């Protein structure tokens, strides 16, 4: 009895989580000429066709992806380096620095957004009134995703035996090489998690991008600007594609991970 109840409960939770996405996916195939979410009038792929014809959406998507890629790589590099530094600090300084690092996560996004905008505008004026754009967006995105990378790398570093690194150097391995050969393989799961987090946060971000975008438009900003007329069903199609891509990526990552584990287990047995 309790089992059925708990299963039912779980099913309900998942239903609430995923029902909106499924409705969006279903309506992305809706043939209705204008409506996206309310009236079903037959199956069609027209919104997918239009989506790829729509240069504005495609440009916004391209901007979003470029920014997400560069800013997540940047945040990962800086964040990993920072985590290693923080890990080597004394207890008190570490606590203090971690508090400072975590602050942007609890700071309301709008405050981060406005303050970054003021800073960027100040520099842009100093540089002779250039427009904010891609560069300021990437800098902003690196800034807000840094703490997440640090937070996901730090635990891995603390799990690691600190003597491994010293041992490698004892055996004559130069510092950089011993970092790449010994430390990085140990913490790589944390680094990858951090990077994926940074990537998704960047794609998602509206508030901070809104203030720092200048004359560049990312996908969330573009979608928001449609709200006076209507949000085009092309966006349903695009969201479906994004959801599908992420689902496939997750599946690949998980399959690979379980394969790795299997191999490791086999190796240990042998």
């Amino acid at each position, binding site marked *: 009895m309790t089992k059925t109840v708990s299963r039912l409960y779980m099913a309900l939770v998942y239903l609430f989580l995923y029902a909106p996405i499924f409705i969006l996916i279903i309506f992305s195939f809706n043939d*209705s*000429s*204008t*409506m*996206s*979410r*309310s*009236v079903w009038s037959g199956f069609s792929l027209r919104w997918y066709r*239009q989506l790829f*014809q*729509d*240069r*504005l959406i495609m440009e916004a998507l391209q901007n979003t992806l*470029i920014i997400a*890629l*560069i800013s997540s*790589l*940047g945040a*990962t*590099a800086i964040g990993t380096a920072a985590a290693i530094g923080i890990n080597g600090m004394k207890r008190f300084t570490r606590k203090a620095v971690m508090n400072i690092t975590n602050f942007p996560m609890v700071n309301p996004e709008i405050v981060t957004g406005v303050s970054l*905008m003021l800073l*960027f*505008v100040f520099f*842009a*004026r100093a540089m002779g*009134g*250039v*427009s*904010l*754009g*891609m*560069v*300021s967006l*990437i800098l902003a995105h690196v800034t807000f995703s840094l703490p997440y990378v640090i937070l996901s790398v730090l635990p891995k570093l603390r799990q690691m035996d600190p003597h491994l690194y010293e041992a490698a150097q004892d055996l004559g391995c130069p510092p950089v090489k011993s970092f*790449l*050969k010994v430390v*990085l*393989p140990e913490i*790589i799961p944390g*680094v990858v998690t951090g990077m994926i987090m940074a990537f998704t946060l960047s794609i998602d971000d509206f508030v901070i991008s809104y*203030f720092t*975008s*200048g*004359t*560049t*438009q990312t996908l969330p*900003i*573009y979608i*928001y*600007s*449609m*709200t*006076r*007329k*209507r*949000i*085009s069903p092309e966006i349903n199609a695009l969201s479906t594609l994004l959801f599908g891509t992420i689902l496939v990526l997750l599946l690949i990552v998980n399959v690979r991970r379980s394969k*790795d584990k299997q191999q490791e287990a086999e190796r240990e047995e042998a």
Partner: protein
Amino acid sequence: MKKRLAAFALSLFFLWPAALPVSAQASGEAAPKTGVTINVYNWGEYISNGVDDSIDVNKEFTRRTGIQVNYTTFESNENLYAKLVSGGANYDVIIPSDYMISKLIKENLVQKLDYQNIPNSKYIDQDFLKPVYDPTNEYSVPYTWGVVGIFYNKKYVKETVDSWDILWDEKYAGKILMFDNPRDAFGIAQKRLDFSFNSTDPNEWEEAAMLLKKQKPLVQAYVMDQIFDKMASGEAWLAPYYAGDAATLVDSNPDIGFAIPTKQGTNFFVDAMCIPTSAQNKAAAEAYINFLCDPEIAAANVDYIGYSTPESAAKALLPEEIQDNPIYYPPKEILEKAETFATLPDDTNLLLDTLWAEVKMGGPGQTATLIAILAGFLLLYIAVVLYKRHKRRWDFK
């Protein structure tokens, strides 16, 4: 496996600096092979974009002139204003609405146009020259115009819709939608009371606010773009909105009708092209405005977006059923009775904001109750925490 990881890590560290110059190039498109890039800032979904065999206006402009267009979009005049004032974004062409244009002129945020570079402005009809928002006609060239009317579902609303009164009819309680922006919402109440939109008399604004408060229990929701879904699905029966969206709505549900209230006046709005003071490529911007005034381009554009064109020459190129449609090109009597928004003095704006907040939130009373309840919970929580700590200390003793 290990090797691959190392390679990945390496690429991670080296890609970052390598990637930066790429991004710098991407944003610095202004230094280009073909000449210049202009930054255009327009309403969302407000230009023909090449979907479904329409013309891609921006692409066509680049093809003809070699000038690149960085086209971005906004969703409200206020948003555009904020972006212009904050700095950090240099636009060359912006397309705000009437009252925002007069505000921009007043604050010196837009500059005078050089009409020599915009020969196609001769196609603009006489009626649109020297409008109230730009009395000298030096700063703006009209892009589109339209009126506000009432969309209704013929299945449920059988009477003729000819007055704003119907939005206060208790028969339709819970089926009425209203604008979710103060100027448009107050405008309806003002016209029902036969006031001017641009009144500076606080009493008139208060009276309009009273009327909106009276209407509130009948209103299903204050919305903008959601009216498309709500009207199409029959969830709501009556909604004031812009005539330019009639085609979209009627397409989605053939039961939907549109009427412009003839008993009182309505709002006549114009969206017009301007060049901000901070523009970097004025000549290219003027070329763009000129291009949009080309009757063929203007016709293709309004055919796609659904609003009305200020050029008779462009109108003549439209399908006949649109040319003769009183929704898009209402008869003179209606236009004569219609009024355009002008910018309001600061104190009136402030009053409008306060009154609008009262209409939507149900007045300052409700907000105060909410705060009181929250404060109550907070006090309770603090009391519990303090009590627990106290008790623990007691137990230790």
